[in-house]
């Protein structure tokens, strides 16, 4: 166990896989974006010089290259950079990667990993701040991973690379510098197992990615006000561990769902709706979503802050459902 940054844990996980399996290669080296931690990638460059390459600015062809290589038996890790640019490769992801296994009747599998950085980063504006996980959630055939801690990202990235399915790993720029305990050595975290980040009895909060951190902050504030919340991080939304969520709502009777994406058809909408369908009898209050409102992301700091999910908004929502 050592205390390392999220960014280092991610690179460690990737390094472990590359050491073990020659078939793993990296296409696109901006794995940590323009983060000051980006030099962590140098380790990959040094140790696997011929297995890491920078492609042209051609997201569609780059994604197709990853998918085609995976179809042919390779296990590429493709970095897309800022998540907003995955839209350039949308057809490759949605029409090719997601469908190939099913539509070939199982003849083909596509063990590719797509990695990207989502969300509000501070001044990213409307074209550098997307959280595409909600749209991807509507595409059957993709595993979708949303880590929220150093220990998780290391184990999840490994599981993503070991998986024979196309897997989307979405990190948040604001997570990269977070430090926490991370087990040494290689380990994987199975997909579809939610993590109860904090136990509590008065209300359930489900949050993903960076909003888990925000939810934990809110939980702390709420606990001081005498409200005990359970914070659940599904870690992967495909597959989704509804059991853990439903069990918690059965206990608390109240649900607040948090999402960095904007409201309509968000991950929060889906999780909330699933509870309304499968856990209705447990509910003692309306479900509340805390997400970005349905506006493009504005550039100016006060505007961006205004639309961002923050602890205050979460506290308010929990207070409303526990009233």
């Amino acid at each position, binding site marked *: 166990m050592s205390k390392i940054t999220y960014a280092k844990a991610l690179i460690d996980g990737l390094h472990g896989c590359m050491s073990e399996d020659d*078939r793993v*290669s990296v296409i696109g080296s901006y794995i940590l974006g323009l983060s000051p931690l980006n030099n962590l990638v140098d380790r990959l460059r040094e140790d696997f010089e011929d*297995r890491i*390459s920078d*492609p*042209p600015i*051609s997201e*569609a*062809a*780059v*994604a*197709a*290259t*990853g*998918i*085609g*290589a*995976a*179809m*042919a*038996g*390779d296990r*590429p890790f493709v970095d897309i950079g800022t998540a907003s640019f995955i839209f350039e490769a949308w*057809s*490759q992801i949605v*029409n*090719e990667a997601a*469908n*190939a*296994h*099913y*539509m*070939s*009747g*199982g*003849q*083909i*599998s596509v063990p590719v990993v797509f990695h990207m950085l989502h969300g509000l980063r501070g001044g990213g504006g409307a074209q550098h701040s997307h959280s595409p996980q909600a749209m991807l959630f509507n595409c*059957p*055939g993709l*595993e979708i991973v949303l880590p929220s801690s150093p220990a998780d990202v290391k184990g999840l990235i490994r599981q993503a690379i070991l998986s*024979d*399915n196309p897997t989307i790993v979405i990190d948040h720029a604001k997570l990269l510098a977070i430090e926490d305990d991370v087990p040494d050595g290689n380990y994987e975290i199975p997909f579809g197992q939610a993590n109860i980040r904090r136990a509590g009895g008065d209300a359930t909060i489900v949050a993903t990615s960076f909003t888990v951190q925000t939810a934990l902050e809110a939980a702390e504030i709420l606990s001081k006000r005498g409200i005990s919340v359970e914070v659940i991080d599904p870690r992967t939304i495909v597959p989704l561990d509804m059991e853990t969520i439903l069990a918690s709502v059965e206990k608390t009777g109240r649900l607040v769902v948090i999402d960095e994406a904007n409201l309509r058809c968000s991950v929060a909408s889906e999780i909330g709706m699933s509870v309304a369908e499968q856990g209705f009898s447990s509910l003692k209050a309306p479900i509340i979503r805390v997400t970005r409102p349905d506006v493009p992301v504005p550039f100016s700091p006060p505007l961006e802050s205004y639309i961002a999910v923050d602890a205050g908004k979460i506290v308010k929502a929990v207070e409303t459902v526990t009233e």
Partner: protein
Amino acid sequence: MEYQLSDRQNKDLLERMLMMRRFEETVAATAEDHFFGHYHLYIGQEATGAAVIEALGTDDLILTTHRNHGHIIGRGADPGPTLAEILGRADGFNGGRGGTLHLTSRDQGFLSTSAVVGGGIGLAVGAGYALKRAAGTAISVAFFGDGALEEGTAYESLNLASLWSLPVLFVCENNSLGAPGASAGEYPSSVNAAKDLIDIPRSVGIAAQSVDGADAGAVYAIAATAVAAIRAGQGPAFIEAKTVRWPGSRPIWPELATGITNLAAATDGALISGQHAAWINEHDPVLARVRCLIEDNILLPAEIDEIDRRVIGTMEAAKSMALASPLPEPESALEGVFT
């Protein structure tokens, strides 16, 4: 070095072409009574597909398009499960999940059929990436139509393959020239401002050549040269085969407008009649091939007939097999999204 077809290869190649032609005729005949989605026949382009495939090895990987039947059959896939797939049957290659648009025969080296115009090109580049990393001599091949060169991903993929010197053969079947389909409401394709399509790959440094796609010998020579260069590590190559798209696509022009091919017409032009006679005479690559093999004394008419009869027999068996195959169990639709 000039690649020429050996006698054995000439026979193989003719058989591939006949398999393609007779398969499509079977598809068209079967379509009258059975459910199909839309489909796109390969008739008129057999010389190109067969000659390129003749130049490939068994380890090579192929990505193809909506007009894929010829490639799959020409490569030696069993026509039974191929037809069964097109009919949506349980014994189809994809278990009925793909249909004509996504027909995949992994055993023959096919990784996917993308029905997204241009979709397979980048996948082939990816296969080339994997093959280059594996450091063997296998290459990947992308078959695509002229329309695919209107898609930006095609261009991006060419650039990437060139930059990384990947072992990829790009085969553009330009079937728009003289294609009579447009008047019957077919998609306009070849809507490209390029005077010459090969200027596009050339602009990103890919060796590219055009060839008469109805001339199997010429296509073979060019393809074999390109394949050898790619295997030797010289990076990707591009072939534009100028072919003529036949009617026979559903739903746009489902008639088999040129009828069932009569090989005797290769030597006796009088046997070709009807509205499309001139066109058959000028363009039909199967008749042209037969004519050439006979004229050059490579095969006797009787030998050709024998091959054709065998092929026709294979198709009859395939049709029986396919029609005997059950439809898949409805509930199985929920299985197999993930491995």
